[in-house]
């Protein structure tokens, strides 16, 4: 099984200059918890719902007047959509991260893959099934 078989597609990118409130709205609309952040040319970071809570709200920053760039995690790692799930896990372990951006052969962003996506496709047992259903993004 390959990365493209389990990844989330329909990824939307936000800009570093967008407000945190805008990012939250995109997360709500897409029902996701993480978004890639891009500048003019390429992805430069990621922002999660948890980042919004711990780096913005908890620090008394107003989400309407705080930019995504101020609180995002900088640096993104990506993997080919044709890579194997084992390779994806290795990359995550190497970098100690839970999510990777996914690119096609031309380098375009085509999705995001998380450890949750991989776990859902790796465990046949009933408990695995529970995890499968519960760990929806």
């Amino acid at each position: 099984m390959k990365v493209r078989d389990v990844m989330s597609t329909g990824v939307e990118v936000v800009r570093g200059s967008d407000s945190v409130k805008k990012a939250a709205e995109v997360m709500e609309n897409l029902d996701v918890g993480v978004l890639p952040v891009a500048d003019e040319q390429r992805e430069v970071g990621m922002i999660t719902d948890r980042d919004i809570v711990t780096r913005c709200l908890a620090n008394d920053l107003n989400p309407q007047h705080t930019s995504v760039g101020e609180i995002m995690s900088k640096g993104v790692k990506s993997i080919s959509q044709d890579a194997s799930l084992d390779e994806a896990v290795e990359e995550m372990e190497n970098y100690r991260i839970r999510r990777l951006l996914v690119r096609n052969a031309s380098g375009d962003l085509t999705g995001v893959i998380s450890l949750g996506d991989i776990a859902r496709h790796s465990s046949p047992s009933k408990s695995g099934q529970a995890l499968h259903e519960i760990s929806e993004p």
Partner: protein
Amino acid sequence: MEKGVVRMEVREIMNRNIYKIQLSEPIITAAKIMDEKDVGIIPVFDKERLAGLITDRDLVIRGVTSDLDLANDPVRDIMSPAVVSISEESSVQEAAELMERKQIRRLLVRDKDDKVCGIVSLSDIARHMSKKLSGEILQEVTQPSVP
């Protein structure tokens, strides 16, 4: 859980560190507690009575996206009033099934007197489950969220 394995109870694996919030407290206070204590969910109380739950996700999709004044408006405005709980003497298997049925990853745990005494998460369960669950990956997945 595999048959033949000793029945494990929720209280053996639950997290007893619960941080409470009152429903009249400002929304921002919930965010501060989540940050300081590194938790993603807080039970909300009306004095002594359990009134609801608030999660980090609630703060984002119901708080940040709204026109609420997060520094002043109360937690009550965005909490989830319905709380699913389980007895501390229930089996881990029952907890897993309840999570599956309700499509949630965390349950409040109550003691014999019906008082909230802990929280059990899917991660807690995963950590105690059989190797069948492709251990390595799952363990990674169930680590507390990394920014």
